[in-house]
């Protein structure tokens, strides 16, 4: 069982204003005794009618099982929930016109929602919409101290999530239980609590990787990189503080090449990025290797700040870092905030995520940047690449194809489930945002490839530490710097964390699959 996560009660003030003193009562839902209406009828009196989309507001919060005490819910039916999904999709989904009009019939929201997306495929043959999810609302609405996650401070990359499974440790967080146990990049987990990682029980493995609470101890058998034997360690889960910017350095021997590992666009990253750029600026770097292979995104404003700090004021002044675009029904007004759609500029001052706002940002004034990538390079991280390309900064990509997510959501709760359905895409200063298949180094040999960038296809190298000039991707970047494309090694861009399962549910465990990061709340369980 997972630690109980509780929901926000943003309606508390309203309840007080109404003079209600009880808890769990009042409002729409009642207290667990609400009638559950099932079957083909809708409590709002509406039925499915092909081609007719009533306003989603008509069905919003009409729930077959209202949450006790939650004023957002009132008694409704499964059909109400399905019709809300259908109308909401028609109003806000980016590709609403490509969604087939399907009679919900006896579908539940869990079976109906996956149908409410475009069936189109991209030029490479991949699904056009790879990002259609649900999550438990209570989980989605929870909070944590920035960068703090319960777990072991262990980042596991899966080469295969289904039997026979394969894994490597990508990195550990400083001062974490994993670091204390001297687990380093390149180690492999052999067993957890006696379950063989390759073929053992996924339930046992996932329970060990994602302990239900802090202070929980699990037994790991680890094979360190290069070792022929294994060792047994007990890891006890704790609240671990993530350091999103690591390994900031000038590379030995190069003199002027800076390197930084940037893992997450969380609030604390802002101050750490500023400090990193100040360090590199003081060192006089003229080239930068930005390692974002494990960075899945986060705050776009932080991505903008980083892009500005790399490119400097001359290249970015008055230009757009990212412009979001909604569907054709919403060309000028953000339909969720009801505010005019305005571009995100290249922020030249701090935005106050983890320090004072309005402070002038340092700059490196580079016209070229090397980025180390993988399928874990996603969303706001890809926006850094795309934003820089939009102002003619040359981006040289070393690694493997990025995830391909120029999209965003305003996730929406209905009846206890939060739905993620793509609502907008971002484009750069040149109006480009069509990288659904990701960005790929130009010599990528894989069938599935995205927008081709100069660079080298290089596999993740777990035999060297991140930031080690001998690490395969970093070594290739350094070689490219002096020798150009001719210096690329034989293409080997391999997708280290590409798992073999596809899911439209974030809160469902798939049989036999071990998951790379907690699908529920990575802020709680970081392993």
């Amino acid at each position: 069982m997972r630690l109980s996560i509780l929901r926000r009660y943003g309606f508390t003030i309203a309840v007080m204003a109404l003079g209600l003193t009880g808890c769990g009562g009042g409002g729409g839902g009642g207290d667990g005794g609400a009638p559950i209406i099932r079957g083909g009828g809708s409590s709002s009196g509406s039925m499915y009618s092909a081609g007719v989309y009533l306003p989603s507001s008509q069905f919003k919060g009409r729930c077959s099982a209202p949450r006790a005490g939650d004023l957002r819910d009132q008694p409704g039916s499964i059909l109400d929930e399905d019709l809300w999904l259908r109308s909401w999709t028609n109003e806000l989904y980016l590709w609403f016109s490509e969604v087939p009009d399907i009679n919900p019939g006896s579908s539940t929201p869990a079976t109906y929602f996956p149908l409410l997306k475009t069936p189109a495929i991209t030029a490479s043959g991949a699904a056009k919409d790879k990002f259609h999810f649900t999550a438990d609302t209570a989980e989605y609405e929870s909070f944590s101290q920035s960068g703090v996650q319960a777990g072991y401070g262990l980042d596991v990359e899966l080469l295969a999530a289904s039997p026979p499974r394969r894994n490597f440790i990508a990195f550990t967080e400083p001062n974490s239980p994993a670091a204390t146990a001297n687990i380093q990049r390149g180690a492999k987990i052999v067993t957890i609590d006696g379950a063989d990682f390759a073929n053992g029980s996924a339930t046992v493995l996932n329970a060990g990787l994602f302990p239900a609470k802090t202070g929980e101890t699990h037994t790991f058998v680890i094979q360190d990189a290069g070792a022929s034997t294994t060792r047994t360690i007990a890891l006890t889960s704790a609240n671990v503080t993530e350091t999103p910017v690591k390994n900031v350095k000038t590379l030995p021997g190069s003199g002027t090449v800076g390197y930084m590992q940037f893992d997450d666009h969380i609030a604390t990253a802002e101050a750490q990025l500023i400090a990193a750029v100040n360090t590199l600026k003081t060192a006089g770097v003229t080239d930068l290797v930005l390692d974002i292979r494990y960075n899945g995104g986060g705050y776009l404003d932080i991505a903008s700040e980083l892009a500005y700090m790399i490119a400097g004021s001359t290249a970015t002044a008055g230009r757009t870092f990212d412009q979001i675009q909604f569907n054709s029904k919403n060309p000028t007004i953000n339909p969720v905030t009801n505010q005019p759609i305005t571009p995100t500029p290249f922020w030249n001052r701090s935005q106050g995520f983890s320090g004072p706002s309005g402070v002038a940002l340092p700059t490196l004034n580079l016209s070229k940047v090397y980025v180390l990538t993988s399928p874990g390079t996603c969303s706001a991280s890809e926006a850094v690449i795309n934003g820089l390309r939009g102002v003619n900064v040359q981006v040289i990509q070393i690694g493997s194809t990025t995830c391909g997510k120029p999209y965003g959501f305003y996730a929406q709760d209905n009846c206890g489930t939060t739905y993620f359905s793509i609502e907008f895409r971002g484009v750069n200063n040149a109006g480009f945002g069509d990288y659904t298949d990701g960005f790929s180094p130009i010599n990528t040999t894989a069938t599935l490839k995205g927008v081709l960038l100069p660079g080298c296809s290089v596999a993740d190298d777990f035999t060297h530490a991140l930031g080690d000039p001998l690490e395969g991707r970093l070594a290739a970047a350094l070689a490219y710097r002096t020798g150009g494309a001719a210096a690329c090694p034989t293409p080997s861009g391999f997708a280290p964390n590409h798992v073999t399962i596809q899911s439209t549910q974030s809160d469902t465990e798939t049989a036999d699959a071990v998951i790379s990061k907690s699908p529920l709340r990575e802020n709680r369980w970081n392993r």
Partner: protein
Amino acid sequence: MRNTSCRRACFVATLVVCVTLSSCASSSTPGDKPVIIENPTAKSRLALQNAVCKSLGVAYVVLADDALTHESTLIVEPARIRDFEGNRLQGRETRMPQQFHLIQGKKKGTCVLIDDRTSVHTVLVDTTCKKK
């Protein structure tokens, strides 16, 4: 998993706190002295957690054991939920972080947590603070 009894308790707690906190909302002033928590205990951690929960209107938040022991600013942000490939669902996060500041209370050694968003001041019980 839904936990009705817990939600009820939290709901009541939130109501009570809102009444309490509404009377102590005020803006921070330049004269406020930033402090950090000294020698945190289980009780002081619980007091901090309760204060943050109540300010945010949530019933649980993950905090580091050494929260506010090195810095007088606390940043909390929404959960990062991931897909099965390990990527964040919200790769372009639209929900902003919240900041809190810790200042000295009326008596030396006491601590007051300020929610920057609402300016609500909460005295941290069972907690000793020192100058940063």
